[in-house]
């Protein structure tokens, strides 16, 4: 067994499949759209799952390609005279191809992991579950490819399966609408897109997906290793049973994953006076110095804020961090290189954050006013940093020039009044200009 397995590892399509998955996986991880995986391990695991959209059909095609080897090489005659039963003969192939796709996926995880390892500190156990489901889906795909390639040993089977696999993944969400949780059972990529910082995949979701994929893999093994119509019919059993169990185990409501929040990831980790969420712990060292500098600038104000906390607002579901008048909220994000995003603008962000209002307030200071006040305190002209509307920058520069023309004390009073008004939710339109 081990000898045959070693030979298959070297000589089957396993190595090639691993390499293709790795190369394609790394390319899409870093170059397809925004690099949204840099936040942390959960985001990396979920991004990898999303990119199964490409890897899953490829694994299917790789399996079908490998399955044609016996036909291509005309060994059926020779092998028919050997005593070892087909089921045993297929085990090394199944093992090697499974190991190949696992290695490819894990190597892709390693490449992404090395990219974020310096700043990603929070490793929730669900990451393992999410990755395990991804691995299981690839194993199921490559084995299913082997099984279908054996049933239809034609040169066109492998590419057709690749196309059909992608088609299937694209069609599942539409075909199951409005029952999104059904799509979650059958599609390993569903709801894995654009994970935010505090997101998670509930254990029950991973569990239900694992049941289905395990059943699918089992059916594929029966089809590939068995012979005769009896095993082919028997392969239907795990599919039906697995689907039923997985549907029963999956929570039956919409947006199960999108609305899932990991409270532990969202908890604050502090290095007074600066706190960030646990998922961003690795950024604390980068965020603390500009945050302290921002607080120092703000100290000119009466009743100045004394702490900077990460703004842990989430919009699915909508949850705000607790409000304290002496705390400035700061949005913390990672950039493509897994470091603090908008590092140069962090001081200004902290200072501008002092003019923000409670979430339920509708008489708050606009971005232009916040920027103008902040840059007046800093003592330089407002510049476009982060994701401000360019129009707001222009307006901010205008307001800032207005403040500069005033005597120092008068301007400070205006800025202090803006902060007071923002805290009490009584900002008048055009307050800073008057």
């Amino acid at each position, binding site marked *: 067994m081990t*000898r045959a397995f070693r030979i298959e590892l*070297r000589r089957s399509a396993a190595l090639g499949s691993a390499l293709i998955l790795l190369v394609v996986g790394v390319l899409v991880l870093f170059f397809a759209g925004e690099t949204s995986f840099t936040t942390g391990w959960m985001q990396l695991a979920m991004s990898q799952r999303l990119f199964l959209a490409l890897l899953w059909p490829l694994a299917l095609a790789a399996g079908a390609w490998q399955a044609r080897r016996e036909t291509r*090489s005309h060994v059926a*005659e*020779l092998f*028919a*005279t050997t*005593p*070892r039963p087909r089921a045993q003969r297929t085990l090394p192939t199944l093992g090697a191809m499974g190991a190949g796709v696992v290695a490819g996926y894990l190597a892709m995880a390693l490449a992404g992991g090395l990219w974020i390892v310096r700043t990603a500190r929070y490793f929730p156990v669900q990451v393992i579950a999410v990755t395990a489901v991804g691995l299981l889906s690839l194993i199921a795909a490559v084995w299913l490819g082997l099984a279908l390639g054996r049933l239809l040993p034609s040169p066109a089977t492998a590419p057709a399966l690749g196309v059909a696999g992608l088609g299937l993944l694209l069609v599942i969400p539409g075909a199951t609408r409005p029952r999104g949780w059904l799509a979650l059972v059958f599609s390993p990529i569903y709801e894995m897109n654009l994970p935010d910082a505090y997101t998670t995949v509930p254990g029950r979701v991973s569990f239900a997906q694992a049941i289905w994929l395990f059943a699918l893999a089992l059916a594929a093994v029966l089809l590939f290793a068995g012979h005769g119509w009896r095993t082919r019919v028997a392969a239907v059993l795990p599919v039906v049973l697995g689907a039923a169990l997985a549907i029963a185990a999956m929570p039956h409501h919409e947006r199960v994953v999108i609305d899932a929040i990991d409270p532990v990831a969202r908890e604050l980790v502090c290095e007074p006076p600066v706190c960030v969420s646990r998922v961003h712990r690795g950024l604390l060292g980068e965020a603390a110095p500009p945050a302290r500098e921002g607080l120092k600038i703000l100290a000119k104000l009466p009743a100045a804020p004394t702490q900077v906390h990460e703004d842990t607002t989430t919009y699915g579901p909508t949850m705000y961090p607790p409000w304290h008048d002496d705390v400035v909220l700061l949005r913390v994000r990672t950039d493509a290189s897994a470091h603090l995003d908008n590092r140069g603008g962090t001081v200004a962000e902290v200072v501008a954050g002092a003019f923000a209002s409670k979430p339920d307030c509708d008489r708050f200071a606009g971005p232009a006013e916040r920027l103008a006040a902040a840059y007046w305190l800093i003592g330089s002209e407002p510049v476009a940093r982060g994701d401000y509307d360019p129009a707001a920058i222009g307006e901010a520069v205008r307001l800032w020039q207005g403040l500069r023309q005033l005597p120092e004390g008068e301007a400070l009073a205006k800025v202090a009044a803006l902060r007071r008004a923002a805290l009490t939710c009584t900002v008048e339109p055009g307050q800073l200009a008057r």
Partner: protein
Amino acid sequence: MRTVSAAETAPTTYPWAVDAEGLTVRAGRHLAVDGLDLTLGTGVHGLLGPNGAGKTTLMRALATVVKPAGGRLTLLGEPVGGRADLRRVRRGIGYLPQQFGFYPRFTVREFVEYLAWLKEMPKAEVPGATQRAIDRVGLTAKADARMKTLSGGMLRRAGIAQAIVNDPAVLLLDEPTVGLDPEQRLDFRELLRDVGVDSCVVVSTHLVEDVVAACSDVVLINEGRLVHQGTPADLAAQGGDGDAGDSPAERGYSALLRKHRAGEGR
């Protein structure tokens, strides 16, 4: 009275390694082997016959690739056909098909090891047996070359290596000398004589001189039936000066076939 089944006593007590009685085998819809009676014991048996005589079909039946359509076939004391479990018989078979299929990406050693594994050899014996088989066919220098890089003759020898790796009690070689150069054919005859000391070797070929040189026994079939079975000397004795052929054995071959065809025609 007989209470012990054939299978239980078979490994040591069968009189013939191959025992066929009224054997019929189909190739497609056509009866390629048609009522053949044949017994083969230890030794090297040369299977001769014109194209379409049913040699390959007979070899495939002996190799358990195709099941007999009728009659009785016993290999190594165990009946073959119907729903019989062939696993034990197959452990004792070595087979080189006429069209030898192989995995081009495997090295020679890997392919022979893989076949040894398929033949359910004990794990510990596989590396040694593989090396021995490769040495015996003279491929030692090419043992770690990929199969796809081998020339036709080397491939044939790799095919022979996989057939003998499990020291088979029945070794079936379908046209093994195709592509071998004269020197290699001499070595191959040596190998045949060596294996034939304690095994039943069946070599299907068109080369009468190979049979005369290496075989202890000649089996001539035509149109699915046994025409002649005897020693090479018997074969040579059958021919007269008027028969076609450049050697006594070839003349004997022609004479036997001519007589058989005449008998059929009558």
